[in-house]
């Protein structure tokens, strides 16, 4: 579903963040990317989501290459791709349901949604997405009142409302306590399997990667170091991932 081919990203300051990176994530698969700070993990996700323009390479979403697209064509092509972040990034003054339903906006034009209204036909679907993440009973509550774990679940519901085929997750449990972190990872694993989602998730927690991922990819200095099933993590290679570049 998602194929990254020879992806290279060099920042304007000359730093090479990704060097010919290759990766494929199949539907129903949860792939975790491990790597130290500055290794290129977040740059990888941002290039895949086309928040950054890669220097070279291709990002295939189904049979569409996102690289080189811009404007309305990029917006349309990117609709099957959803993303969650380290912070939930909800609109705090809107209700939980409105935040979840905002994931449907990309499918609707017209004045109603342009003026702040929600498409009425999408509201039941958004409610079902909240049910899937176990927060339907908080639908009317203001998003700003939620705990970190609850807010992250709403962010996942918003992503689901988008009806994605690929879900990118950039350190989604970094600001959560261990129990909430396991909850979120279990949820991502279940959604990947039940909804045939291709999930690409950046993490720092080796134990979570080992427990929930189907495959684990190691990245260092913008290059892939390993790509193995989660039960076969090469411990020495993992240790080296987190050594400084100079070491």
């Amino acid at each position, binding site marked *: 579903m998602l194929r990254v081919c020879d992806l290279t990203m060099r920042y304007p300051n000359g730093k090479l963040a990704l060097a010919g990176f290759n990766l494929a994530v199949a539907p129903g698969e949860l792939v975790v990317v491990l790597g130290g700070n500055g290794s290129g993990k977040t740059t990888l996700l941002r290039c895949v989501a086309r928040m950054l323009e890669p220097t070279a390479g291709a990002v295939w979403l189904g049979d569409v290459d996102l690289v080189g697209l811009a404007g309305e064509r990029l917006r349309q092509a990117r609709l099957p791709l959803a993303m969650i972040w380290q912070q939930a*990034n909800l609109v705090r003054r809107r209700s939980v349901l409105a935040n979840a339903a905002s994931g449907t906006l990309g499918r609707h034009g017209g004045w109603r949604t342009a003026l702040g209204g929600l498409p009425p036909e999408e509201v039941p679907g958004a409610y079902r997405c909240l049910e899937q993440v176990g927060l339907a009973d908080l639908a009317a509550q203001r998003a700003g009142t939620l705990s970190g774990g609850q807010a992250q679940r709403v962010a996942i519901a918003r992503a689901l409302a988008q009806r994605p085929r690929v879900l990118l997750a950039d350190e989604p449990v970094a600001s959560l306590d261990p129990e909430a972190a396991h909850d979120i990872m279990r949820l991502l694993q279940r959604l990947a399997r039940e909804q045939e989602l291709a999930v690409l998730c950046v993490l720092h927690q080796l134990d979570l990667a080992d427990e929930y991922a189907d495959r684990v990819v190691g990245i260092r200095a913008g290059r892939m170091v390993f790509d193995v099933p989660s039960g076969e993590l090469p411990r020495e290679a993992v240790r080296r991932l987190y050594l400084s570049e100079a070491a």
Partner: protein
Amino acid sequence: MTAAAAPSLAQRGWGGALALALRLTLLIALVLIVVQAALVVQARPQDLITGAKGMADIIRRAMPPDFSELNKIWWPTLETVDIAIFGTVGGVVMALPLAVLAAENVTPSRSLYYAARGIIGFARAVPDLVWALLFVTAVGLGPFPGALALSVHSIGMLGRLFAETIEHMDMAPIDALSLTGARRMQVFSHGIVPSVLPTLAGVTLYRFDENIRSSLVLGFVGAGGIGFELLSAMSLFQYRLVSLYLIVTFVLVIAAERLSALVRARLA
């Protein structure tokens, strides 16, 4: 090594003397500025003493306030409030789109950014009394030129504060919403507006409070409301009526201020 790192006594002495001289120079400069201001405004404290008798005479003639005229004052009062309401609403309607263009983080282009900043700056730079004089010339006497003057002048303050509010908002939820595929207008109405609305409402209410005060003064240049009646009463030496207008003005200003503070506290 210690001797090299620490400044010598002589060095410290010179440094201390220099700092003292600098402070004295600043103090003298400050005194000179205040003295020149007093000279330019032709300050004559003795006139306050000789003028006290005249003031006391006016206050005596203004008492008691002429409450028999109370039934005639409600219309200019309503005019004053409505000038402020129209001025504030008009200001918001014009300031909001300008603020979006003038906020660095959401403006669609640099040229629109500079154009919007220019309009906001110009609206603020020209005082509301000057706007009122211009509109009195353009559309004649009455409350309408006052309301127009407040609308245009409000653009300056509202546009600037609205733009700063948008610039300081957390952009992460906006980026997240954009990535769902939401269009620019949807991101604005579903993300930006709900995030900044309480602050914008607070600023608007503060401006309304200011506009009530301004609308009183605008009457002096023929822009209607209590100010116009107050000036007429003073010109006709009807000081008991003047004191009534001043009481109504006081009540109006305090009421607007309290209401504005109350609603802003609820929104916070």
